[in-house]
């Protein structure tokens, strides 16, 4: 049975009618054309589709559209301030944390969820936070470095 839902995406109010088995990732990518969120497996195994749901990181391929009624969704498009990268995105670029970039949106959202809760994560915390996000290119090291740098910008390090 179709159902009408209301939620926010990157702080914008959205209302739509969804099918019972429609997934959050399809709402974002197909209905709202927010294609920054990627699909790598469709089975909750790769983390490429990670978004924040009321601040918690979730695999959007495993969340049904009906479940987001009344909730706040944040996607990679919602990280930047207009066209300007936020400090986490900038750290990913500067530290070489991006190669093919297909895992990047999901990585960023997992890292964002971590930093929002823990502004001074250890390397172990960072590894743990991104261990559900597969990356076949970078070897993860630059990503861990980028998240550390974003947590403690250069001024705090020196």
């Amino acid at each position, binding site marked *: 049975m179709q159902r009408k839902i209301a939620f926010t995406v990157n702080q914008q109010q959205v209302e739509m009618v969804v099918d019972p088995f429609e997934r959050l990732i399809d709402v974002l*990518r*197909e209905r709202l*054309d*927010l*294609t*920054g*969120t*990627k*699909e*790598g*497996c*469709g*089975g909750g*195994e*790769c983390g*490429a589709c990670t978004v924040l749901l009321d601040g918690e990181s979730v695999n959007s391929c495993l969340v049904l559209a009906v479940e987001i009624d009344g909730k706040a969704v944040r*996607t*990679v*498009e919602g*990280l*930047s301030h207009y*066209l300007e*990268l936020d400090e986490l*995105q*900038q750290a*990913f*670029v*500067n530290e*070489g944390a*991006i*190669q*093919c*970039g*297909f*895992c*990047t*949106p999901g990585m*960023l959202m997992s890292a964002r969820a971590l930093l929002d809760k823990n502004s001074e994560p250890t390397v172990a915390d*960072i*590894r*743990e936070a*991104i*261990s*559900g*996000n*597969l*990356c*076949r*290119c*970078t*070897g*993860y*090291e*630059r*990503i*861990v470095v980028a998240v550390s740098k974003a947590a403690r910008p250069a001024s705090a390090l020196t």
Partner: protein
Amino acid sequence: MEKTVVGKSYPRLDGPAKALGAAKYVADLKMPNMLYVKVLRSPHPHARIVRIDSSKAAALPGVRAVLSGQDCQAMLGLYLIDRPIFAIDKVRFVGEPVAAVAATSLRLAAQALALIAVEYELLPPVLDLATALAKDAPLVHEKLHEYAHIHNVFFPVPHTNISNHSKIRKGDVNLGFSQSDYVYEATYRVPQMQHVPIEAHGAVAQMDMTGKVTIWSGCQSPNAVRKLAAVAFNLPEGRIRVITPQVGGGFGGKAGIGIEGMVMALAMRVAPYPVRLILEREEVFCGTAVRQGLQATIKTGYTKEGRLLAQEADLIWDGGAYTEYGVNIVRAAAYSSAGPYDIAHLKTDSYCVYTNTPVGGPFRGFGMGELHWALEQQIDAIAAKLGMDPVAIRLQNAVCDGSTNATGEVLVGVGLSKCIEGAARLIGMDATPSERKPNHGKGLACMVKGPSTPGTAASSAFIKINEDGSINVTISSAEIGQGMQTVMAQIAAEELGLSMEMVHINTPDTDYSPYEWQTVASRITYSTGNAVQRAAREARGKLLAMASEKLESPPESLTIVRGVITRRDGIGPATSIKELALGLSLPTGAGRGGPVMGTGYFIPDGIHGMDPETGQTPKVTSHWTFGAQAAEVAVDIETGKVNVLRVSAVYDTGFVLNPLLALGQVEGGIMQGLSVALYEELQLSQGQVKNQSFVDYKIATAAELPEMLVGFVETPLDDGPYGARGFGEHTMVPTAPAIANAIFNAVGVRIVDLPITPEKVLAALRAKPK
């Protein structure tokens, strides 16, 4: 001249778009009235197709086309044309496309698939190498002898399952063994495995009402897709346009041509509507090319001082159901079969073998990861038998300037020994045994690889100058994550005296960007880099000619710094690239010259075919790149679990064009190598892939990250841009054998079959004599 842009760590140009979620991949493209494709795949490893009835599927409202081998007889192949787009007459592996549906929604396409009735008659399957090579084995391809292939380069054996037999005969191997004090023989195995790029394979195709076809493909090789599609569909290349957006990882799995044939065949049925196919993850595992399996038996003769004198190698490759690309991996392994060592007497037989298993194809390293798994354990085992230091035995046998390789080529510019010493030093290979913790060990492995391309593999580049003094560098190599775009921009900026912000670079569109053979073989920095350098130099020449007239000073006296053109001595007036971009304006109000463009092309000089009987040749590939890695492991002797603590890596890349991106290539390669070493294997049961998900097919995560220590050696390559060599694939080649050697060092057992699972380690520990 001092370099200002190359050699510096610029963050990647495509970084911001990727971090913003703005970068477009093929699955992000959406077109009006787009149709969605689903593929019906074979459930059997080997069966005759008796009948296909798709009438019910075709009648379903919303279904626009159903195609199978009955309607589409087109064949594909890079080196040997053996692969149909849809199975014709029989299926040869579980997962082979039998039919495909294009419909107005994915759900409808899936419904239609279920309505296609296929009647099969089962044939005896060839599921392993022993069966394939047995006398009177069932043939996977009965018509192998009729297949078109490149003659005198590949050698199919008619009426067998061997689609290529490449040979090396160097020196006199019997003499070499008779001169040896000892002979050691062992067999090593590598299973088939998947590349698993995080972006699944995808393509969109559309034919317009004039018959022109456009394909948007997340592929490594737009020109190869165009060429192979042109042959398959008997269309001129100019009537096919291939556009490649950002690609979410390749590793060889998106080289050559893949699903584009199916999508194009459907698009040609439903013109003018676009059709789209994005594979499910399960289909990536069973339906796309995998790394070929290898069984390598190596027999080595050596002196009591540890000098290798003779080697006999039997390399038997599991090429899977189709080997249109794989035959060349088998050839590359033959001509690289001495590995990084100077061995006087060699006999190598490398066989590409058909089986009824997933299609083998190129994988990062193009056979070198598999080959070095064997060679680098073999020399380690020999060192142990002689009680020699594993670093010393490698340095003693390592090729150096003046050595000959397997093909008899005399090598120059070899920095291998420095790589071995560097990797050993970074990890502390020489630490005294007393410092060792129990069940901890260190091991080293080295490697060599050259680009395994035809001698004619070409690159080209085109540079135009914009009104604002910025430039567009136009090439057709694909950005698959390797950072190629950034490095090409650096080369252009360096040559034209521009800052990096003034360089724009495109993703390929074969209608507008010039020819590139393929984005494979670690060849883009080298080959496309040379083309870009030449294009930039041509544009610079034109700019300086106009500036010379304007500044009344000879071109040789001028220089360009950050877009400003002055005399080198700084005397006199200045002009700029921006001022000259559209031509020279004279004080009289007239103009001269015109908008500045530069073009450049490159084909490596003097590549020479191999002698069919001996494999000997003066130059089989454009250049060689060497490297070494060492690993430190801790083995849990209760569980057999191996913990990789540290990995060092040193590569001779000729010249490091971008240290930040180079580091990323090495770290990424190490992690992929670690993953291959410990986890990865396509588990097949009756030819069916059993582990078709990331849960069942584990790849390394951030949780397993070792400490990584990376160094570079820079022995310039004569014809490399600024001396640079290719090295993107090389970075994962020695990781697995280095880990295996470290395990041997730690607990005295040698695991010869990949992957190194806890079960294998435990079994070996139990079997070890106390």
